[in-house]
């Protein structure tokens, strides 16, 4: 139990490195401010497939294949893959990865899946159960719209708090040992539900979950926000990011210098008509596996706290009038070895 810090956090006992990473992004994301960080940009939403669901599966498969290739490994070297997405029965993952022949653990953490997969993969390696493990997730605007909202051609109006589901996928390959960047701490979030029922304000619904996990992380590790060069939440968007920063500020944590949100970074707010910013599993995954990892490799950031946020509701619970339970998982990534 020596690896546990406080109530929600673990500090990894060995070096667990992020060996490689890869991203696939949609056309709109490929026109955004982070375009140059994406490895593959899809020219159109079906990507040569028969349906958007098939396209999303192909995104996950491509991201994993490229990440494994970037690591100089073969698919057979990966002991576990942890994957999930937003679709019913997580079909994006299971259909996308069915041909890869890697021992597969399917996850559902809504948009927090990247942090969940990264957490568990790191623990598997730190526990000595795997030498190499991968984590992947995706979201696709068109598949998410038809499942959670309206048909694409339906004439609806988006309120200013509405977010835009990112079409994107991100995959990471983790290894025991290695030269870093290292996964050092994992803070697993609790389900937080502040009674928000407005499905058009996901950022507002999820912000308290991010606040809860961040405060747990700071308490458990004894670190202050300024320990990190970058603290990044998953998909709170412009509305949720400002709320989270304000709530943390009220509790004495200064988030003004190094805090941002993947949903705010991936689109240009006005020009790309993104309203309150990006959302979806692919939002935090593509920003982590694109921008953040590449900048860490360059040395721009030394310590990053990645906090992917998820809204755990379904269309059924919304119609039944229930509120939106939310979650956030934090993963601390550092260029410095925790063992040195």
């Amino acid at each position: 139990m020596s690896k546990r810090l406080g109530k929600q956090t673990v500090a990894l006992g060995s070096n667990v490195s992020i060996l490689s990473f890869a991203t696939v992004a949609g056309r709109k994301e490929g026109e955004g401010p982070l375009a140059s960080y994406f490895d593959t940009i899809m020219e159109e939403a079906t990507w040569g497939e028969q349906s958007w669901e098939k396209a999303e599966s192909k995104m996950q498969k491509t991201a994993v294949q490229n990440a494994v290739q970037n690591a100089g490994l073969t698919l057979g070297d990966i002991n576990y893959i942890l994957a999930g997405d937003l679709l019913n029965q997580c079909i994006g993952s299971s259909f996308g990865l069915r041909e890869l022949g890697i021992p597969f653990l399917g996850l559902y953490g809504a948009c927090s899946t990247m942090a969940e997969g990264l957490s568990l993969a790191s623990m598997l390696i730190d526990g000595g159960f795997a030498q190499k493990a991968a984590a992947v997730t995706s979201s696709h605007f068109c598949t998410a719209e038809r499942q959670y909202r309206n048909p694409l051609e339906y004439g609806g109006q988006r309120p200013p708090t509405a977010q835009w589901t990112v079409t994107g996928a991100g995959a990471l390959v983790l290894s025991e040992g290695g030269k870093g960047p290292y996964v050092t701490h994992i803070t697993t979030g609790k389900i937080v539900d502040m009674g928000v029922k407005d499905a058009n304000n996901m950022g507002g619904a999820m912000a308290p979950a991010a606040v809860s996990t961040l405060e747990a992380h700071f308490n458990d590790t004894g670190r202050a926000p300024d320990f990190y060069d970058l603290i990044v939440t998953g998909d709170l968007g412009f509305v949720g990011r400002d709320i989270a920063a304000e709530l943390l500020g009220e509790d004495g944590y200064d988030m003004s210098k190094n805090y941002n949100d993947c949903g705010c970074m991936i689109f240009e707010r006005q020009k790309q008509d993104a309203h309150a910013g990006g959302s979806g599993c692919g939002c935090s995954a593509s920003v982590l596996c694109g921008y953040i990892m590449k900048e860490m490799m360059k040395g721009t950031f030394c310590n990053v706290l990645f906090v992917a946020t998820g809204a755990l509701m379904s269309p059924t619970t919304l119609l039944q009038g229930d509120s939106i339970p939310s979650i956030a998982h934090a993963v601390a990534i550092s260029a410095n070895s925790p063992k040195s």
Partner: protein
Amino acid sequence: MFMQYLNAFWVGGLICALAQILIDKTKITPARILTLLVVLGVVLGGLGLYDYVEKIGGAGATVPIIGFGNSLAKGVIKGIKEDGFLGIFTGGTAATAGGIAASIFFGCIIAAIFTPKEKG
């Protein structure tokens, strides 16, 4: 002639602008607003009140979905006058049969021909 278009414009526009308040100021979803408006049309039609709106607005009153509700109610009343009790059931859909059939038929054809596109 010109006046009729001006009236259609402001009556139709006003109905839409009022419905927009519901969209912006309440959490009522668009599908519920449409249902609300069609039932409102049935009630106004049953009371004979929508005739006044239609007299001023012309297409500005008949094109909004309230007009569809009005046609349903007027059709039922006409059906009762012509066929008695059976008209309660046949009148409404008979009066709106053209619109309902057209929406099903065009829906099929258009959906068979075209596919949705990605947005943004």
